[in-house]
């Protein structure tokens, strides 16, 4: 990794590689300075396990989502935010990857509260608390706090 990278970026690169391998159960990923000398920048290199290196555009929808999650979590590890709102970032993930995603979130909960908007049963399973949002016929939203067990029964989980 180029010396142009600040200490922060080097730390993020390191964590990115680790989170990627955990979320993909193998493979490798890193940041590197952009090839373009004019535009100082960062490229992402990601290789899921068993596959050859390609560009990001060749990754599948779920692989792109998971790679972005790995990078986000790396940044949150290096520069924790007190909380993070994730709005349906799990939409493209299959069941097994949702499990890896929520386990990775769990690793950061000592420093960060996660508020996860989701339709996914696996994500709901992994949550500590749950809120249900509904809208009445008058176009007004309201919130119901659901005990986790009854929420899981409602989600058919």
């Amino acid at each position: 990794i180029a010396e142009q990278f600040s200490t922060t970026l080097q730390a993020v690169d390191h964590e990115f590689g680790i989170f990627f391998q955990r979320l993909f159960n193998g493979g490798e990923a890193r940041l590197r300075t952009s090839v373009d000398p004019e535009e100082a920048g960062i490229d992402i290199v990601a290789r899921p396990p068993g596959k050859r290196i390609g560009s990001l555009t060749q990754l599948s929808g779920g692989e792109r989502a998971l790679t972005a999650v790995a990078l986000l979590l790396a940044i949150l590890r290096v520069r924790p935010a007190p909380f993070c709102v994730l709005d349906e970032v799990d939409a493209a993930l299959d069941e097994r990857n949702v499990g890896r995603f929520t386990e990775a979130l769990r690793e950061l909960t000592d420093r960060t509260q996660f508020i996860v908007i989701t339709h996914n049963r696996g994500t709901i399973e992994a949550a500590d608390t749950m809120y249900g949002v509904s809208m009445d016929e008058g176009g007004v939203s309201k919130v119901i706090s659901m005990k986790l067990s009854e929420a899981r029964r409602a989600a058919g989980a």
Partner: protein
Amino acid sequence: AVLRTATIVGFKSFMNKTTIEFAPGITAIIGPNGSGKSVLGESIRWVLAETNPRHLRAKKSEELIFGGSETRRSLGMAEVVLHVDNSSQRLPIDFTEVEIGRRIYRDGASEYLVNGARVRLRDMEELLAGANLADNPFTFIGQGLVDQVLALRPSDRRLVIEEAA
């Protein structure tokens, strides 16, 4: 700063006063399409001094106030108050409990409040910056943003991560 509660009234589809309590760990927000889940997330983003209405799916701030429906009339004000536990002193202010509030009126007038007292936008941003909450591109992640992180022109991406530095 640990999120304790959010109280929302008049913000977009939350016409009635709504309070939600946050716990440590992972909180899931579920519900049907169009029920208000993303609006809930936007209300928190807004109270943390989001200044660009387009990040809140609005063309102008006025659209953030409950605009009525087929059977309800619109309101004149939107307000969100975030109650935060500051015992870790992540917010550079000498209180262990902090209430961060924001209001907006139809005429465009808007207020920022810390523990009930009005402050300038600049003071609010300074306060939040201390806890890595001001203008932090990684606090609110939507479906578009997952791709956005990967698709950023490399020069943006460097700025984005350096911003975290």
